[in-house]
């Protein structure tokens, strides 16, 4: 990349942002509805990456088609986590779900370690090496897919929350659980679905992250940081904010790599996150 060509890092950053927003979506949803900070979110995303890796290497199925398997599996995992771990933990106190999530994170990391070894893996499909051109500049096809998928998932989720009774009940429960119960909403069951839906987004995020970057059993920490960063920049509870947060995060990453070198990109990312926490803790788009 020669200097003076900002077009490439900017477009790369925006496309990556769609994927980051998708990664953050599940974290934001679980916090918004259950008020639980799911420290295991990054590891659950990696679990989905490994799931898609297994779908590709063991079943020989394209991982995007394989989502018909990974999505329901991750949904069920989400429901089970809420039903057997979180719903009991919240009755103990606010810190119990945090500790459970932390424990879950360690369990998933170590299970992945045992099953897949600490070696770095990548989901290599026939389009992994494909690229497309805009103004004679080359871009990886996977980045475009990340962006499109990020937007599609967010739009589908938004319409689901707005138009279906269950979606409305999820939004209502996030706003006021007591009032929702009095409307006849089975809030316990809504919590199961909310966690399950968060895991559907994690399944899709994990699959596309795995197609974009190599991953290891400890990549969950990075993914969690990305998700937190996105939510912190965008502000909680607003889907538009999450989307913009993802894009800003993607831009910060690609532009700092462009100007300061690849080694600096994560450092700059953290500095930006800390600066926003210090000066605008509700996020750039939060209320």
């Amino acid at each position, binding site marked *: 990349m020669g200097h003076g060509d900002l077009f490439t890092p900017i477009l790369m950053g925006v496309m990556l942002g769609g994927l980051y927003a998708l990664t953050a979506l599940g974290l934001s949803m679980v916090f918004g509805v259950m008020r639980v900070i799911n420290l295991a979110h990054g590891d659950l995303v990696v679990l989905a990456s490994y799931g898609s890796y297994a779908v590709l290497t063991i079943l020989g199925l394209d991982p995007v088609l394989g989502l018909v398997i990974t999505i329901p599996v991750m949904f069920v995992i989400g429901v089970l986590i809420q039903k057997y771990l979180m719903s009991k933990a919240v009755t103990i106190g606010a810190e119990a779900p945090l500790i459970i999530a932390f424990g879950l994170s360690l369990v998933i990391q170590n299970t992945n370690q045992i099953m897949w070894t600490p070696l770095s893996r990548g989901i290599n499909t026939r389009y992994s090496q494909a690229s497309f051109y805009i103004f004679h500049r080359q871009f990886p096809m996977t980045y475009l897919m990340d962006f499109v998928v990020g937007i599609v998932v967010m739009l589908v989720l938004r319409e689901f929350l707005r138009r279906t*009774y269950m979606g*409305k*009940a999820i*939004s*209502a429960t996030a*706003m*006021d659980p*007591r*009032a*929702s*119960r*009095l*409307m*006849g*909403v*089975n809030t316990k069951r809504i919590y199961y679905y909310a966690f399950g839906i968060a895991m559907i987004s994690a399944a899709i995020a994990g699959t596309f992250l795995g197609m974009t970057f190599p991953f290891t059993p400890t990549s969950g920490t990075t993914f969690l940081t990305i998700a937190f960063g996105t939510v912190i920049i965008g502000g909680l509870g607003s889907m538009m904010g999450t989307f913009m947060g993802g894009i800003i995060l993607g831009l910060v990453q690609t532009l700092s790599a462009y100007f300061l070198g690849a080694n600096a990109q994560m450092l700059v990312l953290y500095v930006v996150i800390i600066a926003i926490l210090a000066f605008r803790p509700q996020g750039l788009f939060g209320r």
Partner: protein
Amino acid sequence: METEPILKIENIEVFHGTFQAIWGLSMEVRRNESCALIGANTAGKSTLLDTINGVLHPATGSIKFLGQEISKLDPFEIVDLGITQVPEGRRLFPEMTVLENLIMGSYTPNARKHCKENLKRVFELFPKVKDRQKQLAKTMSGGEQQMVAIGRGLMAHPQLIMIDELSLGLAPIIVDEIFRTIHQIKAQGVTVLFVEQNVAKTLMEADRAYIIETGKVSLSGTATDLRNDKNVHKAYFGV
């Protein structure tokens, strides 16, 4: 005039953790009447409504709705059977429009079937609410919010609507309007049980009332009888 009770509560005891809020309380609500609960703050009125609604469960005693024992059911089952509560402080969904709030009221399977007709009824009852249906709930005044909250309760297609703190915090002119709607709701065949601080007004408007003190019924009867009761006068009117 004795009619069959729609709700019959017998000797319930209710706890918040280790704190006992209701002590052997019995009462009944008769079909198509307006019945009021009067009493000081923390007397247990809201606890009683939550217990009827299944948010809380009594440790002992029975609650029968249309002859069916409901004391062990959860709120989503009880709402579907036909009891709805308009909670204290209204608790509308702030980021939803008025119409979305009303639609949320018709969440249960039984209510969904009657969503359209109930929406029409609510709009007839509160024309103001119809005009403001696209507005966000949080941008409305207290009186308008109470109308939406009652409307949302009616969207559940209830046989019994329970309204906690009917007129608390509302301007006097709105209070009259809200009390008038009690009569209109009754006229549509829905039984009303409400909690109210304004004792004089309540005993003018309700059919019957229960006076609740420290988790027990201290006095009950028709509003007319209570209005003329010496003890009620002393306690609530100071004469």
